[in-house]
């Protein structure tokens, strides 16, 4: 009986970690994506300072996301996204138009990443 109770406890803990990591990934990736949208909008409206701040915010949120990377099952493109976000910061500082393209790329990669962590049928299979 003790063994069954211990197993029940372990399963509950695993489920909490699993569900918690899904929620965490969803929330932190949302923050990065929102910051990237803000950077794009600010740059389009020629608010370069705003774009720079938004790019910094995106980088902070991405670092937060990366700090819990042990809960992410697919890591192949983590470095790629990190490099893109770092590049966005540099482009915002240089007021380069390429920022818009890079923001779009980073946002799509993050969204794809976030969606791959969701326990839907396609991801499970």
């Amino acid at each position, binding site marked *: 009986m003790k*063994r*069954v109770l211990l*197993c029940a406890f*372990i399963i509950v803990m*695993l489920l909490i970690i699993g569900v918690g990591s899904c929620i965490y990934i969803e929330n932190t990736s949302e923050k990065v994506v929102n910051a990237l949208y803000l950077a794009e909008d600010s740059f389009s409206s020629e608010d370069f300072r705003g774009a720079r701040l938004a790019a910094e915010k995106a980088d902070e949120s991405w670092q937060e996301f990366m700090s819990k990377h*042990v*809960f992410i099952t697919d*890591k192949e493109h983590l470095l790629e996204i990190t490099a893109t976000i770092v590049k966005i910061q540099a482009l915002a500082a240089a007021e380069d138009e390429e920022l818009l393209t890079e923001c779009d790329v980073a946002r799509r990669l993050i969204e794809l990443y976030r969606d791959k962590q969701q326990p839907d049928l396609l991801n499970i299979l």
Partner: protein
Amino acid sequence: MLIIIIRSVLLYLLVIFALRLMGKKQLGELQPSELVTTILVSNIATLSLEDPSMPMIMGIMPILMIVCLDVFMSGIMLKNTKIRTLVTGSPKIIIKDGEIDQLQLKSLRYTIDDVTEAMREHDIFDISQVQYAIVETTGKINFLEKQGDGKNPPTVIIKDGEIDSNGLKEIGIGRGWVDKIIAENKTELSRIFLMSCDSGGKYTLVLKNYDIKEGKAK
């Protein structure tokens, strides 16, 4: 490199914990479900050692989940004989009174070579000397050599409060006879842990409160 060494130590401790959680049964003959668990645990444990970029938690979580499922499955099988039979199968008689049940052998996908080899392992060289050969759920073949009196060994007819109809058929008795014995012993079917009986009507009855009764039907 140090990471791999630390991971090895942690995984070693985790696998020992996992085996302890599964119980001593795991260390002996393996049932199909236990074999699956053992193979999966051993494979998953090596994944995070082979690939240092993979977080160790990705190995720990599935190991714990599989072991917990195994413990739950064992608990369910302990309570429910139908699920137990479904998961582990049931022992099959392949030789009775020196005669091979060829259909059974075919359904088990055992060849005659497998049987004769197992016989030789038990120091039996003449098939006519075999009273019973039973393929256990672990795949092991057990033999009972013919005794001088020619009597069949006792067969289990009640397990965990449930009548084993195959057992009844084997010794050629009916449900009525069993009910009579239960009534004579002033007990109920649900209170019986085990009842075995031989073809001569000699039975042993073990109640769930460890009370053992023996007797012979008139």
